[in-house]
Protein backbone atom coordinates (compact mmCIF):
# COMPACT_ATOMS: atom_id res chain seq x y z
CA UNK A 1 0.00 0.00 0.00
CA UNK A 2 1.16 3.52 -0.75
CA UNK A 3 -0.22 6.96 -0.14
CA UNK A 4 -0.65 8.87 -3.35
CA UNK A 5 -1.23 12.58 -3.57
CA UNK A 6 -2.48 14.10 -6.79
CA UNK A 7 -4.86 16.72 -8.10
CA UNK A 8 -8.06 15.54 -9.70
CA UNK A 9 -10.35 17.99 -11.43
CA UNK A 10 -8.70 20.81 -9.56
CA UNK A 11 -9.01 19.26 -6.10
CA UNK A 12 -6.06 17.94 -4.13
CA UNK A 13 -6.61 14.33 -3.08
CA UNK A 14 -4.61 11.90 -1.00
CA UNK A 15 -5.46 8.22 -1.15
CA UNK A 16 -4.06 4.97 0.18
CA UNK A 17 -4.04 2.24 -2.48
CA UNK A 18 -2.26 -1.00 -3.35
CA UNK A 19 0.75 -0.40 -5.61
CA UNK A 20 -0.92 -2.47 -8.32
CA UNK A 21 -3.81 -0.04 -8.55
CA UNK A 22 -4.31 1.46 -11.98
CA UNK A 23 -5.24 5.10 -12.30
CA UNK A 24 -8.63 4.18 -13.78
CA UNK A 25 -9.49 2.11 -10.73
CA UNK A 26 -8.35 4.85 -8.40
CA UNK A 27 -10.68 7.23 -10.22
CA UNK A 28 -13.67 4.90 -10.45
CA UNK A 29 -13.47 2.96 -7.23
CA UNK A 30 -11.70 5.19 -4.75
CA UNK A 31 -12.87 8.60 -5.96
CA UNK A 32 -16.24 7.46 -7.40
CA UNK A 33 -15.56 9.24 -10.68
CA UNK A 34 -17.36 6.62 -12.74
CA UNK A 35 -17.50 8.66 -15.93
CA UNK A 36 -14.15 7.17 -16.94
CA UNK A 37 -14.84 3.69 -18.32
CA UNK A 38 -13.03 0.44 -19.00
CA UNK A 39 -13.83 -1.14 -22.36
CA UNK A 40 -10.88 -3.46 -22.95
CA UNK A 41 -7.90 -5.00 -21.23
CA UNK A 42 -5.30 -4.41 -23.94
CA UNK A 43 -4.93 -0.60 -23.84
CA UNK A 44 -6.73 -0.12 -27.13
CA UNK A 45 -10.31 1.09 -26.80
CA UNK A 46 -9.71 4.47 -25.18
CA UNK A 47 -12.88 4.47 -23.03
CA UNK A 48 -10.59 5.29 -20.10
CA UNK A 49 -8.87 8.35 -21.54
CA UNK A 50 -8.24 11.19 -19.08
CA UNK A 51 -5.81 14.08 -19.14
CA UNK A 52 -2.63 13.93 -17.11
CA UNK A 53 -0.98 17.33 -17.00
CA UNK A 54 -2.99 18.26 -20.07
CA UNK A 55 -2.13 15.19 -22.15
CA UNK A 56 -4.69 12.56 -23.16
CA UNK A 57 -3.62 9.18 -21.79
CA UNK A 58 -5.19 5.79 -21.22
CA UNK A 59 -5.78 5.60 -17.50
CA UNK A 60 -5.99 1.80 -17.69
CA UNK A 61 -2.29 1.76 -18.56
CA UNK A 62 -0.98 4.06 -15.88
CA UNK A 63 -0.27 2.94 -12.34
CA UNK A 64 -1.77 5.19 -9.72
CA UNK A 65 1.77 5.76 -8.48
CA UNK A 66 2.85 7.08 -11.87
CA UNK A 67 0.22 9.79 -11.53
CA UNK A 68 1.44 10.93 -8.12
CA UNK A 69 1.96 14.66 -8.13
CA UNK A 70 0.14 15.03 -11.43
CA UNK A 71 -2.85 17.09 -12.41
CA UNK A 72 -5.56 14.72 -13.62
CA UNK A 73 -8.69 15.87 -15.43
CA UNK A 74 -11.61 13.53 -16.09
CA UNK A 75 -14.85 13.91 -18.02
CA UNK A 76 -16.47 15.15 -14.80
CA UNK A 77 -14.02 18.05 -14.66
CA UNK A 78 -14.29 19.77 -18.02
CA UNK A 79 -17.54 21.72 -17.86
CA UNK A 80 -17.75 24.98 -15.99
CA UNK A 81 -20.77 24.45 -13.77
CA UNK A 82 -23.77 24.17 -16.07
CA UNK A 83 -21.81 25.40 -19.06
CA UNK A 84 -20.66 22.49 -21.17
CA UNK A 85 -17.18 22.33 -22.64
CA UNK A 86 -17.45 23.12 -26.38
CA UNK A 87 -16.46 19.53 -27.16
CA UNK A 88 -19.28 18.18 -24.99
CA UNK A 89 -21.74 20.52 -26.67
CA UNK A 90 -20.50 19.54 -30.12
CA UNK A 91 -20.95 15.83 -29.38
CA UNK A 92 -24.53 16.48 -28.27
CA UNK A 93 -25.40 18.79 -31.14
CA UNK A 94 -23.94 16.51 -33.82
CA UNK A 95 -25.30 13.25 -32.34
CA UNK A 96 -21.72 12.14 -31.75
CA UNK A 97 -22.80 9.52 -29.23
CA UNK A 98 -25.30 6.72 -28.92
CA UNK A 99 -24.84 4.35 -25.99
CA UNK A 100 -22.48 6.82 -24.31
CA UNK A 101 -19.96 4.29 -23.11
CA UNK A 102 -16.99 5.32 -25.26
CA UNK A 103 -18.06 8.97 -25.11
CA UNK A 104 -16.07 10.24 -22.11
CA UNK A 105 -12.85 8.84 -23.59
CA UNK A 106 -13.75 10.15 -27.03
CA UNK A 107 -14.38 13.63 -25.66
CA UNK A 108 -11.16 13.69 -23.63
CA UNK A 109 -9.14 12.48 -26.64
CA UNK A 110 -10.87 14.93 -28.95
CA UNK A 111 -10.12 17.91 -26.73
CA UNK A 112 -6.47 16.88 -26.86
CA UNK A 113 -6.61 16.58 -30.66
CA UNK A 114 -7.94 20.11 -31.00
CA UNK A 115 -5.43 21.39 -28.45
CA UNK A 116 -2.59 19.97 -30.52
CA UNK A 117 -3.85 20.86 -33.98
CA UNK A 118 -5.76 24.03 -33.32
CA UNK A 119 -7.83 25.07 -36.29
CA UNK A 120 -5.79 23.06 -38.79
CA UNK A 121 -7.98 20.01 -38.60
CA UNK A 122 -9.51 18.17 -41.51
CA UNK A 123 -11.50 14.95 -41.67
CA UNK A 124 -8.53 12.77 -42.52
CA UNK A 125 -6.46 14.11 -39.63
CA UNK A 126 -9.32 13.64 -37.18
CA UNK A 127 -9.84 10.05 -38.31
CA UNK A 128 -6.13 9.30 -37.94
CA UNK A 129 -5.99 10.99 -34.54
CA UNK A 130 -8.98 8.96 -33.28
CA UNK A 131 -7.03 5.74 -33.82
CA UNK A 132 -6.79 5.10 -30.09
CA UNK A 133 -10.54 5.27 -29.42
CA UNK A 134 -13.02 2.61 -30.43
CA UNK A 135 -16.76 3.23 -30.81
CA UNK A 136 -19.16 0.46 -31.75
CA UNK A 137 -22.30 2.57 -32.20
CA UNK A 138 -21.74 5.60 -34.39
CA UNK A 139 -19.54 4.40 -37.24
CA UNK A 140 -17.50 7.49 -36.26
CA UNK A 141 -19.31 9.63 -38.87
CA UNK A 142 -20.87 11.97 -36.32
CA UNK A 143 -17.88 11.81 -33.98
CA UNK A 144 -15.68 13.19 -36.74
CA UNK A 145 -18.32 15.84 -37.40
CA UNK A 146 -18.43 16.70 -33.69
CA UNK A 147 -14.65 17.12 -33.42
CA UNK A 148 -14.49 19.36 -36.49
CA UNK A 149 -17.40 21.42 -35.16
CA UNK A 150 -15.81 21.71 -31.72
CA UNK A 151 -12.49 22.75 -33.24
CA UNK A 152 -14.25 25.80 -34.61
CA UNK A 153 -16.06 26.48 -31.33
CA UNK A 154 -12.88 26.12 -29.26
CA UNK A 155 -11.06 28.54 -31.54
CA UNK A 156 -13.84 31.06 -31.03
CA UNK A 157 -13.82 30.45 -27.27
CA UNK A 158 -10.05 30.94 -27.12
CA UNK A 159 -10.28 34.12 -29.17
CA UNK A 160 -12.88 35.43 -26.76
CA UNK A 161 -10.69 34.81 -23.71
Amino acid sequence: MSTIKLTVNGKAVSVEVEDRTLLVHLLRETLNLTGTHVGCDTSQCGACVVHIDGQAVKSCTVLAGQAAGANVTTIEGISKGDELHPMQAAFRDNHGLQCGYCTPGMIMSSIDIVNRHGGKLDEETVRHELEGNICRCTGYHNIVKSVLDAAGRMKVAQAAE
Partner: protein
Amino acid sequence: MYETTYHRPSSVDEAAALFSKGSDSKYLAGGHTLLPVMKQRLASPSDVIDLGRIKELVGIDVSGDALTIKAATTYFDILQSAEAKKTIPAIVHLTSVLGDPQVRYRGTIGGSVANNDPAADFPAAVLALGATIKTNKRTIAGDGFFKGLFSTALEDGEIITAISFPIPAKAGYSKMRHPASRFALTGVFVAQTKAGEVRVAATGASQNGVMRVPVIEAALKANWSAGALDNVTIPTDGLLADIHGSSAYRANLIKVMAQRAVAAAG
Protein backbone atom coordinates in the same frame (compact mmCIF):
# COMPACT_ATOMS: atom_id res chain seq x y z
CA MET B 1 -2.52 -7.78 -11.88
CA TYR B 2 -0.55 -9.29 -9.04
CA GLU B 3 0.59 -7.14 -6.17
CA THR B 4 3.90 -5.42 -6.72
CA THR B 5 5.97 -2.61 -5.23
CA TYR B 6 6.25 0.59 -7.20
CA HIS B 7 9.38 2.78 -7.06
CA ARG B 8 10.05 6.13 -8.63
CA PRO B 9 13.80 6.80 -8.53
CA SER B 10 15.19 10.15 -9.59
CA SER B 11 18.50 8.99 -11.02
CA VAL B 12 19.81 6.14 -13.13
CA ASP B 13 22.07 4.98 -10.31
CA GLU B 14 19.20 4.92 -7.85
CA ALA B 15 17.12 2.96 -10.36
CA ALA B 16 19.85 0.37 -10.85
CA ALA B 17 20.29 0.03 -7.08
CA LEU B 18 16.55 -0.48 -6.55
CA PHE B 19 16.49 -3.01 -9.34
CA SER B 20 19.16 -5.16 -7.76
CA LYS B 21 17.37 -5.09 -4.39
CA GLY B 22 14.15 -6.57 -5.73
CA SER B 23 13.78 -10.32 -6.12
CA ASP B 24 12.29 -9.97 -9.60
CA SER B 25 12.44 -6.33 -10.63
CA LYS B 26 11.28 -4.81 -13.88
CA TYR B 27 11.86 -1.36 -15.31
CA LEU B 28 8.91 0.63 -16.48
CA ALA B 29 9.25 3.62 -18.77
CA GLY B 30 5.98 4.58 -20.46
CA GLY B 31 4.38 1.41 -19.16
CA HIS B 32 2.60 0.58 -22.39
CA THR B 33 4.38 -2.72 -22.80
CA LEU B 34 4.84 -3.88 -19.22
CA LEU B 35 1.48 -2.88 -17.75
CA PRO B 36 -0.69 -4.69 -20.34
CA VAL B 37 1.34 -7.85 -19.70
CA MET B 38 1.00 -7.40 -15.95
CA LYS B 39 -2.75 -6.82 -16.32
CA GLN B 40 -3.04 -10.15 -18.11
CA ARG B 41 -1.07 -11.67 -15.21
CA LEU B 42 1.58 -12.85 -17.64
CA ALA B 43 4.26 -10.94 -15.71
CA SER B 44 4.49 -10.61 -11.94
CA PRO B 45 7.47 -8.43 -11.04
CA SER B 46 8.16 -8.04 -7.34
CA ASP B 47 9.24 -4.45 -7.96
CA VAL B 48 8.44 -1.99 -10.70
CA ILE B 49 11.09 0.68 -11.15
CA ASP B 50 9.73 3.72 -12.96
CA LEU B 51 12.33 5.36 -15.21
CA GLY B 52 9.85 7.87 -16.56
CA ARG B 53 10.70 10.69 -14.15
CA ILE B 54 14.49 10.51 -14.38
CA LYS B 55 15.48 13.85 -15.90
CA GLU B 56 18.88 12.67 -17.14
CA LEU B 57 17.07 10.13 -19.37
CA VAL B 58 15.04 12.70 -21.30
CA GLY B 59 16.18 14.82 -24.19
CA ILE B 60 17.20 14.97 -27.83
CA ASP B 61 20.54 16.33 -29.05
CA VAL B 62 22.40 16.61 -32.29
CA SER B 63 26.13 16.45 -31.99
CA GLY B 64 28.52 15.90 -34.85
CA ASP B 65 27.02 13.35 -37.18
CA ALA B 66 24.53 11.80 -34.79
CA LEU B 67 21.06 12.37 -33.48
CA THR B 68 20.94 11.17 -29.90
CA ILE B 69 17.64 10.44 -28.26
CA LYS B 70 17.73 9.71 -24.55
CA ALA B 71 15.91 6.58 -23.53
CA ALA B 72 12.94 7.95 -21.57
CA THR B 73 12.11 10.50 -24.25
CA THR B 74 8.50 9.95 -25.28
CA TYR B 75 7.30 9.49 -28.82
CA PHE B 76 5.40 12.72 -28.41
CA ASP B 77 8.63 14.54 -27.59
CA ILE B 78 10.29 13.05 -30.67
CA LEU B 79 7.40 14.28 -32.82
CA GLN B 80 7.88 17.78 -31.43
CA SER B 81 11.65 17.80 -31.91
CA ALA B 82 12.96 20.29 -34.44
CA GLU B 83 16.35 18.54 -34.31
CA ALA B 84 14.84 15.18 -35.20
CA LYS B 85 12.75 16.65 -38.00
CA LYS B 86 15.77 18.38 -39.45
CA THR B 87 18.28 15.56 -39.21
CA ILE B 88 16.33 12.31 -39.66
CA PRO B 89 12.73 13.03 -40.70
CA ALA B 90 12.22 9.30 -41.32
CA ILE B 91 12.43 8.76 -37.55
CA VAL B 92 9.76 11.38 -37.00
CA HIS B 93 7.57 9.73 -39.63
CA LEU B 94 8.09 6.34 -37.99
CA THR B 95 7.07 7.83 -34.66
CA SER B 96 3.95 9.37 -36.16
CA VAL B 97 2.64 5.99 -37.35
CA LEU B 98 3.52 4.17 -34.14
CA GLY B 99 0.78 3.32 -31.64
CA ASP B 100 -1.93 5.94 -31.16
CA PRO B 101 -1.85 9.49 -29.78
CA GLN B 102 -2.31 8.35 -26.18
CA VAL B 103 0.44 5.77 -26.53
CA ARG B 104 2.73 8.36 -28.08
CA TYR B 105 2.38 10.57 -25.01
CA ARG B 106 3.55 7.79 -22.71
CA GLY B 107 5.64 5.37 -24.73
CA THR B 108 9.41 5.85 -24.88
CA ILE B 109 12.05 4.96 -27.41
CA GLY B 110 14.12 3.16 -24.80
CA GLY B 111 11.17 1.05 -23.73
CA SER B 112 10.47 -0.01 -27.29
CA VAL B 113 14.07 -0.88 -28.09
CA ALA B 114 14.65 -2.73 -24.79
CA ASN B 115 11.50 -4.77 -25.25
CA ASN B 116 12.30 -5.76 -28.87
CA ASP B 117 8.76 -6.75 -29.80
CA PRO B 118 9.07 -8.52 -33.18
CA ALA B 119 6.52 -6.09 -34.66
CA ALA B 120 7.74 -2.86 -33.02
CA ASP B 121 8.82 0.01 -35.26
CA PHE B 122 11.90 1.47 -33.58
CA PRO B 123 14.09 -1.64 -33.79
CA ALA B 124 13.94 -1.27 -37.59
CA ALA B 125 15.29 2.28 -37.35
CA VAL B 126 18.05 1.22 -34.95
CA LEU B 127 19.19 -1.58 -37.21
CA ALA B 128 18.89 0.24 -40.55
CA LEU B 129 20.62 3.37 -39.32
CA GLY B 130 23.36 1.43 -37.54
CA ALA B 131 22.57 3.15 -34.26
CA THR B 132 24.43 2.57 -31.03
CA ILE B 133 22.72 1.80 -27.77
CA LYS B 134 24.15 3.53 -24.74
CA THR B 135 23.51 1.98 -21.35
CA ASN B 136 24.45 2.75 -17.77
CA LYS B 137 27.33 0.28 -18.26
CA ARG B 138 28.54 0.44 -21.87
CA THR B 139 27.85 1.18 -25.52
CA ILE B 140 26.37 -1.57 -27.69
CA ALA B 141 26.34 -1.57 -31.49
CA GLY B 142 22.83 -1.78 -32.97
CA ASP B 143 23.93 -4.66 -35.19
CA GLY B 144 24.57 -6.88 -32.19
CA PHE B 145 21.78 -5.62 -29.96
CA PHE B 146 18.67 -7.54 -31.04
CA LYS B 147 18.77 -11.23 -30.20
CA GLY B 148 15.45 -12.56 -31.49
CA LEU B 149 11.95 -12.23 -30.08
CA PHE B 150 11.76 -9.99 -27.00
CA SER B 151 15.44 -10.59 -26.39
CA THR B 152 18.39 -8.18 -26.50
CA ALA B 153 22.05 -7.89 -25.54
CA LEU B 154 21.03 -6.07 -22.33
CA GLU B 155 22.13 -7.73 -19.13
CA ASP B 156 19.81 -8.12 -16.18
CA GLY B 157 19.33 -4.71 -14.63
CA GLU B 158 21.14 -2.81 -17.36
CA ILE B 159 19.42 0.44 -18.33
CA ILE B 160 19.41 1.96 -21.80
CA THR B 161 20.29 5.62 -21.35
CA ALA B 162 20.29 6.83 -24.94
CA ILE B 163 20.22 5.76 -28.56
CA SER B 164 22.49 7.47 -30.99
CA PHE B 165 21.53 7.46 -34.67
CA PRO B 166 24.19 8.40 -37.25
CA ILE B 167 22.61 10.98 -39.54
CA PRO B 168 22.17 9.29 -42.92
CA ALA B 169 22.32 10.74 -46.40
CA LYS B 170 18.87 9.38 -47.07
CA ALA B 171 16.36 7.40 -45.05
CA GLY B 172 12.74 6.36 -45.26
CA TYR B 173 10.26 4.20 -43.37
CA SER B 174 7.12 2.58 -44.70
CA LYS B 175 4.77 0.48 -42.66
CA MET B 176 1.84 -1.77 -43.39
CA ARG B 177 -0.09 -1.73 -40.14
CA HIS B 178 -1.43 -4.83 -38.52
CA PRO B 179 -5.15 -4.16 -38.94
CA ALA B 180 -6.05 -4.90 -35.33
CA SER B 181 -3.07 -4.17 -33.12
CA ARG B 182 -1.65 -1.39 -35.30
CA PHE B 183 1.85 -2.76 -34.77
CA ALA B 184 3.81 -3.41 -37.98
CA LEU B 185 2.42 -6.24 -40.06
CA THR B 186 5.60 -5.41 -41.91
CA GLY B 187 7.61 -2.21 -41.71
CA VAL B 188 10.76 -1.47 -43.66
CA PHE B 189 13.35 1.17 -42.86
CA VAL B 190 15.82 1.99 -45.63
CA ALA B 191 18.92 4.10 -45.19
CA GLN B 192 21.86 5.27 -47.21
CA THR B 193 24.72 6.33 -44.98
CA LYS B 194 26.86 9.30 -45.73
CA ALA B 195 29.60 6.82 -46.64
CA GLY B 196 27.31 5.32 -49.27
CA GLU B 197 26.47 2.11 -47.44
CA VAL B 198 22.87 0.89 -47.86
CA ARG B 199 21.19 -0.67 -44.85
CA VAL B 200 17.64 -2.03 -44.84
CA ALA B 201 15.77 -3.48 -41.88
CA ALA B 202 12.37 -5.09 -41.73
CA THR B 203 10.17 -5.50 -38.66
CA GLY B 204 7.00 -7.53 -38.18
CA ALA B 205 7.94 -9.98 -40.89
CA SER B 206 10.40 -12.45 -39.45
CA GLN B 207 9.93 -15.20 -36.91
CA ASN B 208 13.12 -13.91 -35.28
CA GLY B 209 12.13 -10.28 -34.99
CA VAL B 210 13.73 -7.34 -36.70
CA MET B 211 16.17 -8.27 -39.48
CA ARG B 212 18.39 -6.85 -42.21
CA VAL B 213 17.31 -7.60 -45.78
CA PRO B 214 20.49 -8.27 -47.79
CA VAL B 215 18.85 -8.80 -51.20
CA ILE B 216 17.21 -5.40 -51.01
CA GLU B 217 20.37 -3.78 -49.73
CA ALA B 218 22.30 -5.20 -52.70
CA ALA B 219 19.74 -4.02 -55.22
CA LEU B 220 19.58 -0.53 -53.72
CA LYS B 221 23.34 -0.32 -53.45
CA ALA B 222 23.48 -0.87 -57.21
CA ASN B 223 20.63 1.53 -57.92
CA TRP B 224 18.91 3.60 -55.23
CA SER B 225 15.41 3.63 -56.64
CA ALA B 226 12.09 1.94 -56.01
CA GLY B 227 12.20 0.48 -59.49
CA ALA B 228 15.44 -1.31 -58.67
CA LEU B 229 13.42 -3.64 -56.46
CA ASP B 230 10.83 -4.62 -59.08
CA ASN B 231 12.44 -7.93 -59.81
CA VAL B 232 13.73 -8.72 -56.35
CA THR B 233 12.29 -11.84 -54.75
CA ILE B 234 12.22 -12.12 -50.98
CA PRO B 235 12.47 -15.71 -49.74
CA THR B 236 9.63 -16.77 -47.46
CA ASP B 237 11.83 -18.93 -45.25
CA GLY B 238 11.66 -17.86 -41.66
CA LEU B 239 8.89 -15.33 -42.23
CA LEU B 240 5.86 -15.13 -39.97
CA ALA B 241 2.52 -16.54 -41.09
CA ASP B 242 -0.70 -15.92 -39.17
CA ILE B 243 -4.34 -15.06 -39.74
CA HIS B 244 -3.39 -11.53 -40.77
CA GLY B 245 -0.76 -12.41 -43.33
CA SER B 246 0.83 -15.44 -44.96
CA SER B 247 4.59 -15.62 -45.30
CA ALA B 248 4.24 -14.99 -49.05
CA TYR B 249 2.24 -11.87 -48.28
CA ARG B 250 4.83 -10.67 -45.81
CA ALA B 251 7.61 -11.36 -48.32
CA ASN B 252 5.72 -9.17 -50.77
CA LEU B 253 5.25 -6.49 -48.14
CA ILE B 254 8.98 -6.38 -47.44
CA LYS B 255 9.55 -5.51 -51.08
CA VAL B 256 6.61 -3.12 -51.45
CA MET B 257 7.31 -1.32 -48.18
CA ALA B 258 10.97 -1.03 -49.14
CA GLN B 259 9.97 0.53 -52.45
CA ARG B 260 7.72 3.02 -50.71
CA ALA B 261 10.37 3.80 -48.12
CA VAL B 262 12.87 4.50 -50.88
CA ALA B 263 10.34 6.76 -52.61
CA ALA B 264 9.76 8.60 -49.32
CA ALA B 265 13.51 8.92 -48.70
CA GLY B 266 13.97 10.58 -52.06
